[in-house]
């Protein structure tokens, strides 16, 4: 309890000081609006649905990109993880792309897809595929060799081997890669929206700034913070065993 | 079986002590956790002296508070009751003159420094001029059979060698007392015996005062001038014996000596009973 009180002290103090100094004229900044105004703007945005719509749009893009990244990442990661030779030959070419930031591809994506969901989704995919790919390679390499031998003796097809043995066995570590990717997805989506894409929370942020609706801008920022925090918290509570059950592994 | 007497008659100082002066005196020392109403007593009314130049061994089952006593002696802990005096003055906190050798040696060494660097830490603390470091460190390493390991990192060493490094570092403090917390417990039997003998040799050369904690009864009898048996819940001294075996001791002969076996026989039951 004591820890909770202590932790809450700083933000409460800041908000109070901010409000008081704005009202008493101590803090006069065009770029700084009052907490009360921010709250009002925020509630307004929620009430008329614009904030929720923007949130959904961002989520859409993040989800799109994430799912594609999971598909590609796990597939490629499994192939590269299973065959060291393939990894040695194909790896360096893939690695050459790694140092390039995902955001650098925004113009290219814009060129290929124009404004909208696919363009943003592809950037998210590019950013998210790396942790998943690497996590999967690492996970597949770490599978008990005995299991592979069992698969070969049973003469399982590649697909069956993937589904019944490789994926469940590697799931825990792949999960870690996916968690990292989820963290990226939201950040990347918002970034793309701030820079170019006219949809989502990032766009409403920069729009508020450009139309000098400062209180709305801060409100959106707080909302974004809250959303990010909520997702992180949810991630922390997701158990590793649940995905395993999803894939049909025996508990 | 002697009951958990609050005060045990102090055994006379061993003849081998340089003088009968007490290096450490404990009077009615107790340690409890929690508020006075439902305090958990870890130690109860511990009273004894540690004499200059002796090797005092404390034996007892796990959880009887022997490590706690050692930490109290080092000054890392303060007693809730009673007092501890070092050379006549009350102990306020840890001090260089009371070196403590920890059981978890890998945690007690600086992994980013070489063996020489680790030993030098004590010299740096003592503000010994850097020019003399090399010489002093080499001498200590030689004494602990670590020649040649000076440039290696702790991760490259075996458990026994790491423990030797820790002891070397403690010696570099030039302590008046060496406190050892089950130092050889995590080592294999052969290394343990080698280190026991090295310790004995060291103690004899330097006329060191050593307080040695162990759960191994035979080790305690082998090493010590006196052996105290501790009981648990709460921790207290339930028996003190004087080990009248001749020095220098030998792994083979001493352990077969009838007096060794007699002591062992007598104390074995005490440990089992608690």
């Amino acid at each position, binding site marked *: 309890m004591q820890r909770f009180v202590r932790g809450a002290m*700083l933000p409460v103090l800041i908000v109070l000081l901010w409000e008081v100094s704005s009202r008493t004229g101590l803090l006069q900044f065009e770029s700084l609006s009052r907490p009360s105004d921010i709250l009002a703007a925020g509630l307004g945005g929620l009430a008329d649905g614009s904030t929720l719509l923007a949130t959904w749009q961002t989520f859409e893009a993040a989800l799109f990109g994430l799912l594609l990244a999971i598909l590609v990442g796990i597939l490629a990661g499994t192939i590269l993880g299973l065959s060291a030779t393939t990894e040695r030959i*194909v790896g360096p070419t893939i690695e050459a*792309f790694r140092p390039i930031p995902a*955001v650098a591809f*925004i*113009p290219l994506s814009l*060129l*290929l897809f124009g404004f909208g969901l696919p363009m943003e989704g592809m950037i998210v995919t590019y950013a998210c595929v790396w942790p998943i790919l690497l996590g999967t390679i690492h996970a597949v390499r770490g599978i008990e060799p005995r299991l592979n031998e069992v698969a070969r003796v049973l003469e399982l097809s590649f697909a069956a081997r993937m589904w019944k043995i490789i994926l469940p066995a590697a799931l825990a570590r792949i999960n870690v890669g996916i968690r990292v990717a989820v963290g990226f997805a939201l*950040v990347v989506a918002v970034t793309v929206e701030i820079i170019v894409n006219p949809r989502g929370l990032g766009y409403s942020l920069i729009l508020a700034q450009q139309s000098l609706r400062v209180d709305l801008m801060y409100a959106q920022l707080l909302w974004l913070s809250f959303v990010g925090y909520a997702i992180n918290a949810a991630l922390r509570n997701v158990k590793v065993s649940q995905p395993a059950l999803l894939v049909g592994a025996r508990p | 079986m002697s009951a958990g007497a609050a005060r045990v008659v102090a055994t006379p100082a061993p003849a081998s002590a340089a003088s009968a002066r007490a290096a450490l005196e404990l009077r009615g020392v107790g340690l409890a956790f929690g508020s006075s109403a439902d305090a958990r007593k870890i130690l109860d009314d511990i009273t004894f002296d540690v004499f200059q130049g002796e090797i005092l061994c404390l034996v007892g089952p796990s959880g009887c508070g022997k490590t706690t006593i050692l930490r109290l002696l080092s000054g890392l802990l303060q007693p809730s009751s009673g007092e501890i005096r070092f050379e006549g003055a009350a102990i306020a906190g840890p001090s*260089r003159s009371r070196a403590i050798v920890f059981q978890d040696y890998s945690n007690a060494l600086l992994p980013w420094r070489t063996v020489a660097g680790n030993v030098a830490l004590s010299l740096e603390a003592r503000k010994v001029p850097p020019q003399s470091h090399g010489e002093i460190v080499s001498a200590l390493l030689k004494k602990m059979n670590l020649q040649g390991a000076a440039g290696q990192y702790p991760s490259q060493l075996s458990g026994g060698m790491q423990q030797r490094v820790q002891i070397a570092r403690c010696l570099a403090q030039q302590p008046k007392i060496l406190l050892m917390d089950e130092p050889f417990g995590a080592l294999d039997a052969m290394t343990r015996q080698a280190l026991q003998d090295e310790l004995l040799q060291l103690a004899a050369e330097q006329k060191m005062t050593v307080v040695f904690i162990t759960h191994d009864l035979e080790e305690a009898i082998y090493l010590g001038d006196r052996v105290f048996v501790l009981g648990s819940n709460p921790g207290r001294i339930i028996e003190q014996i004087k080990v009248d075996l001749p020095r220098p001791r030998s792994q083979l002969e001493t352990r077969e000596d009838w007096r060794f076996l007699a002591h062992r026989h007598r104390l074995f039951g005490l440990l089992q009973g608690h």
Partner: protein
Amino acid sequence: MKQRAVLLNLGALAFAAGILASWQILSDARVISPIFFPPPSRALSELWARFADGSAWTSIQATSTRMFVGWCCASLLGIVLGAAIGSSRLARDYLEPTLEFVRPLPASAIIPIAILFLGLSNSMSVAVISFGAIWPVLLSSVYGFGSINNRLQEISAVLGLTRREFLRKIAIPSAMPDVLAGVRVSLAISLILAVVTEMQASLPGIGRDIFLAQRSFRSPDLYAGLILLGVIGFIVNFALAAFEKHALRWRNPYS
């Protein structure tokens, strides 16, 4: 075995060359659109031309400076704050919840505020980069300084080390692996945010070059910029990794 390694390396080279060659052929033959996927030869010649007339160097310098300044500010601040917070239980109690709340905020979301206060300027860029890059260093420093082995603290007490000596001889070396890991991630983030702020505020640098290239449909320029970024990212990361390996050589004395 060495023969096999050489063979594999050649294979990797051949694969990469093969990809480039196929791309070249398909693009020239217009099987894939040369507007969206120009032949590598054109991207490379474009790159060459920009090096020749010096514009590539200007861009590299602009982006690198931005990245380094932001990264240094973030690292220094992050380490100092992290050390202070990490060593004090009290400070952690007061500050951690707020930090936990601010952390998941994408650094790019700060851009609108930064523009409001600092305009479309280099200081805006450095401010955003610092804000984004400080988190990994801060958090790993808090962790590193907060998890110093108890034994080492006790030994420090027994040896009578002063607070300063403890910091210098024990705390900092002990926290170094974590701090360096955080610093590495910070560097990656610094590069990303440098590019982002350049695109957003049209500040000189590779990010802006790529952005403008798209606007004028000059795709070879676009790819040239991507190549440059890749090279910078690689070199910088490699250098840092080498430094890390040296500084932490006590971790792997056998390799």
